[in-house]
């Protein structure tokens, strides 16, 4: 684990924690509070009475069968999806239709997508610098310093001047993680980050996520990678048919599942 405490902090950047780490934490003890969330797509009841509290520094892995509402729930946390009933409170700020609140929350919540969604017309470095310059209004030099810092964090500093199309899938996803980290978010959302990757590239991305977890980042991960979940998660959540079926610590979740659906899902996943 690289020691960041000796690295000079670029001027004008956000204050680091006293111990020199570059991961920020939420102000409130409860990082994300989802209260009785209900969402309909037309007539289809896609999220049913979902309630979940994510504490500061916690790593939650949400798993479950396809179509169970996992990604939809994740995308509600930064209001990429809206909802008809219930409340979502992120670091003390309630998410409503107010655009300014939404942008404020999105600034502090980073998201990594299954399809990477890098901007193909910009270089890797520009991809990472874009948001700090235009959202945090950082001077260009500072943004570049931060971008290079996080590209080094995800172990691809030499790719800075390449374009996304020139990188492998694993490298692209790591750039996506670096891009989200350049905004120095307090909470990171991962929507099936390794599902679109070739098997040999999955490890490098999971390792990056593991390092992030060790540094105290609050993480909400939707994933099928059970090995990773077992190592990194504080709590496992199983979702099916739009509702939370079971929540437990990883060891208990895997060795002693209590709900029928959980047992069925685990038997299908772990072969």
């Amino acid at each position, binding site marked *: 684990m690289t020691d960041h405490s000796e690295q000079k902090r670029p001027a004008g950047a956000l204050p680091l924690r006293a111990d020199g780490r570059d991961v920020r934490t939420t102000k409130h003890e409860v990082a994300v509070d989802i209260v009785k969330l209900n969402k309909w797509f037309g007539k289809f009841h896609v999220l049913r009475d979902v309630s979940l509290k994510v504490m500061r520094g916690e790593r939650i892995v949400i798993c479950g069968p396809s179509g169970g509402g996992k990604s939809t729930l994740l995308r509600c946390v930064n209001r990429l999806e809206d909802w008809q009933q219930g409340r979502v409170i992120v670091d003390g700020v309630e998410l409503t239709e107010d655009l300014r609140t939404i942008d404020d929350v999105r600034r502090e919540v980073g998201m990594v997508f299954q399809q990477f969604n890098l901007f193909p017309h910009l270089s890797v470095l520009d991809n990472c610098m874009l*948001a700090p310059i235009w959202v945090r209004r950082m001077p260009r030099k500072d943004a570049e310093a931060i971008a290079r810092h996080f590209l080094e964090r995800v172990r691809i500093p030499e790719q800075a001047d390449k374009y996304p199309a020139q990188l492998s899938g694993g490298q692209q996803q790591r750039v996506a993680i670096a891009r989200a980290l350049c905004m120095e978010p307090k909470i990171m959302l991962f929507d099936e980050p390794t599902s679109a990757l070739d098997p040999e590239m999955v490890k490098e991305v999971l390792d990056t996520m593991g390092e992030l977890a060790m540094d105290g980042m609050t993480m909400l991960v939707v994933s099928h990678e059970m090995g990773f979940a077992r190592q990194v998660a504080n709590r496992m959540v199983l979702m099916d048919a739009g509702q939370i079926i079971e929540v437990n610590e990883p060891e208990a979740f895997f060795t002693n599942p209590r709900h029928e659906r959980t047992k069925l899902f685990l038997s299908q996943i772990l072969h």
Partner: protein
Amino acid sequence: MVQDAQTAFVSQQLIASLEPPRAAVGLPALFRQRLFGSVLNSVLTLLGALLIIVLIWPAVRFLLIDAVWEGASRVDCLPETVGRPVGACWPFVEKKFAQFMYGFYPASELWRVNLTYALAAILLAPLLVPSIPYKTANAILFFGVFPVVAFFLLIGGVFGLPHVETRLWGGLLVTLIISFTGIIGSLPLGILLALGRRSDLRVIRMFCIGFIEFWRGVPLITVLFFATYMLPLFLPPGWTIDALLRVLIGVVLFAAAYMAEVVRGGLQAIPRGQYEAAMALGLGYWRMNGLVILPQALKLVIPGMVNSFLALFKDTTLVLIVAIFDLLGQVRAAFSDPNWATPVTLFTGFAFAGMIYFVISFAISRYALFVERRLNTDARH
């Protein structure tokens, strides 16, 4: 007894990368493989050659071989005088050249038009070459400062320059003014309309749909006609807007509606994930569109945009209907000069106008292709 195939294999050494076999290059290979490689190829090659000869030869004969190059009036272009069949009558073009280029702009003030052309060339050329720096300053000068300077230079009435009415402007000058203004004006307006048409705000969306459908629903001729002859009836008495300005406004609004739909096609083609990634980073609506979506969308629809530009460039000939004499209008007006009436005057005039339109259109088209290739960073096509 069947010999079993080897079931196990372990590579002893890795094969190094070699040069590929030399592909057949050069002219002999071209002839051997492509043009006459098979019976069908040979037949097609011969047919193609025949077609080229049949089409090009008469044109070359008319424009170059049989053409008359020196003369003072119609007499010099008649077959009786020359003693052989006559092709193009180039003295006609030569004597009328100033009219074709400048219309009836006073001869003593032509230096102002030439200065405007020179300024345009000086400011545009560095903008077109990608490696030349200071693009932002250059763009501001060309799109912001130059139009104002050009306007005052051409109209006059200030700084001691005599006033030249727009009625006197004509020829290629007017063609370029209308095309240039139309293209530069319709692009930003079209982008805004396209964004508005996809907006979540109902009022804006309805307005943009209405605007686009209206302006696409009427022919450009009626727009020009209405702007020139009907609009003055609606304005309060004593209010006059210059005739050329009315045409420019009509052309910009008309072209913007078409540009909006072209841009909208590009916006639709951008994957939803790009919008989501930009939103998740906290970029607001305008930053998301300006930094992420539009750069990709506009790059995608360069073919469509250039299409619209070229169509606009040639649609400028319609201004003849409102008594503005652009390049083609001047050529056609010159046909009625009795001093130059010969059987070949018409062909010569149209050939000349056609060549000018072609050269400019082809240059624009080629440059657009160059831009497309340069911007092709995502290697998708």
